[in-house]
């Protein structure tokens, strides 16, 4: 809390400062152990290599295959990180301490989303060049647009995933349940993202993929808001 102000943390600067502090805490833990990040990155690169061998490269051109592979990898490697997001709060009942602090529930959620977004983007920063390398993609000047699409989709993925990670951490089969609950929610995120990146990789301008890209942005807008609103309900009073 900034300066021990008596007001609750609903003011924007305090809200964001709290969120950033939570994100920093999570990222610091991850940076010191690097366990989940290593697992997710190795998983992503391994998947790229395995996927490359499952298709006949002479039958399907690489730029038709790559978007699908890219998004399957991003989704599953993202899930590896999301599981850990609330899992690390369970030991020593750290979560209770976090809830007892003056930080608002919404700030906790936004902080966790930011940390997960950084995590997912970090994995993607390594997986995206790996896909480009192994699939021999010629992205050229479209790198900026592609990274923009990836970030837009990652935001939605992190928000929805963080909310369900919070729900799953309350259950008996947390790791098993998370994919079951989140994957249907990722459908309107992953399909538009894969379609938009397919247009870009084929060398077409973003305008051609506008219906898909708009859907992606609408998903982000609706679900980031909705997840912030419902997150306090995942916490036991």
């Amino acid at each position, binding site marked *: 809390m900034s300066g021990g102000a008596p007001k609750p943390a609903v003011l924007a600067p305090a809200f964001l400062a709290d969120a950033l502090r939570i994100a920093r805490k999570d990222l610091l833990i991850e940076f010191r152990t690097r366990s989940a990040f290593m697992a997710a990155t190795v998983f992503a690169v391994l998947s790229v290599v395995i996927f490359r061998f499952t298709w006949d490269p002479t039958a399907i051109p690489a730029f038709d295959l790559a978007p699908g592979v890219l998004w399957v990898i991003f989704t599953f490697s993202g899930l590896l990180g999301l599981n850990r997001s609330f899992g690390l709060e369970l030991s020593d009942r750290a979560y209770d301490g976090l809830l007892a602090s003056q930080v608002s529930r919404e700030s906790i959620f936004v902080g966790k989303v930011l940390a997960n977004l950084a995590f997912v983007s970090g994995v993607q920063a390594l997986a995206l060049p790996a896909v480009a390398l192994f699939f021999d993609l010629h992205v050229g000047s479209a790198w900026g647009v592609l990274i923009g699409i990836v970030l837009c989709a990652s935001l939605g993925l992190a928000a929805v995933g963080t909310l369900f990670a919070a*729900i799953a951490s309350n259950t008996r089969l947390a790791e098993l349940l998370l994919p079951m609950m989140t*994957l*249907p929610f990722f*459908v*309107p995120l992953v399909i*538009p993202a894969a379609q938009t990146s397919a247009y870009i990789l084929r060398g077409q301008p973003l305008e051609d993929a506008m219906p898909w890209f708009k859907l992606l942005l609408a998903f982000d807008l609706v679900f980031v808001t*909705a997840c912030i609103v419902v997150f306090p309900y995942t916490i036991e009073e």
Partner: protein
Amino acid sequence: MATSAATITAPGKLPEAKPIDGFLAISIVAVLAVCVRAIWFTPVDAMLGAAQKIFYVHVPSAIAGLYVACGLLAVSSILYLWLKDERLDRLAEASAEVGLLFMGIVLVTGPIWARTSWGTWWVWEARITSTLFLWLLVLGYLVLRGAVESPENRARLSAVMGSLAALLVPFIHLTVKLFRGMHPGPVVLKPEKPSLPPEMLTTFLMAIVAFMLLFFALLRVRMRWAALRDARTAMEAA
């Protein structure tokens, strides 16, 4: 639904089980009667042949499972987060489970019909794909319910998922709609005039009534079962 409230207000005593549920029995007879009418007393479609009779099961199940059940699930989940009434939670639980059954009927009868009229068991078409995703979503919801032990937690967490699912459905539909579809559009609720001949239309409307009766009968039985379970849990805890 009034009975389920009554079971909770009398602690220490569980209501007696009834051997036959009248409403359920009537609805099963109604569904069987509609099947008889559809098979023997409704003309065979000139274009699609006898396979068209699946229509009288497929479409009413879709209306009950996709629109009514999912609608009830969404509304009761959102209302639960607001009112915290455990009857709303039981309504959500029951509509998810009964809805899963009816959606299952849609997903089984659909491919059988598709094989005879389109020549293929499965097509990745907008409405079919939406139904499949919705079915998986409700399945995930029920698995979540099964994985939470405390009744209060279970109700709250599943209501969060139910409310978000209500927002998700339009997105799934838009996504799969951007792929082009070959599923026929509505044949009854069209702005001009229903394109079904009158005999078929009568059977179809009767089928909708019968399947709705069955849906609500099963919903009522399932809600009553949930009320009994909750009452028993409360008794054991006391």
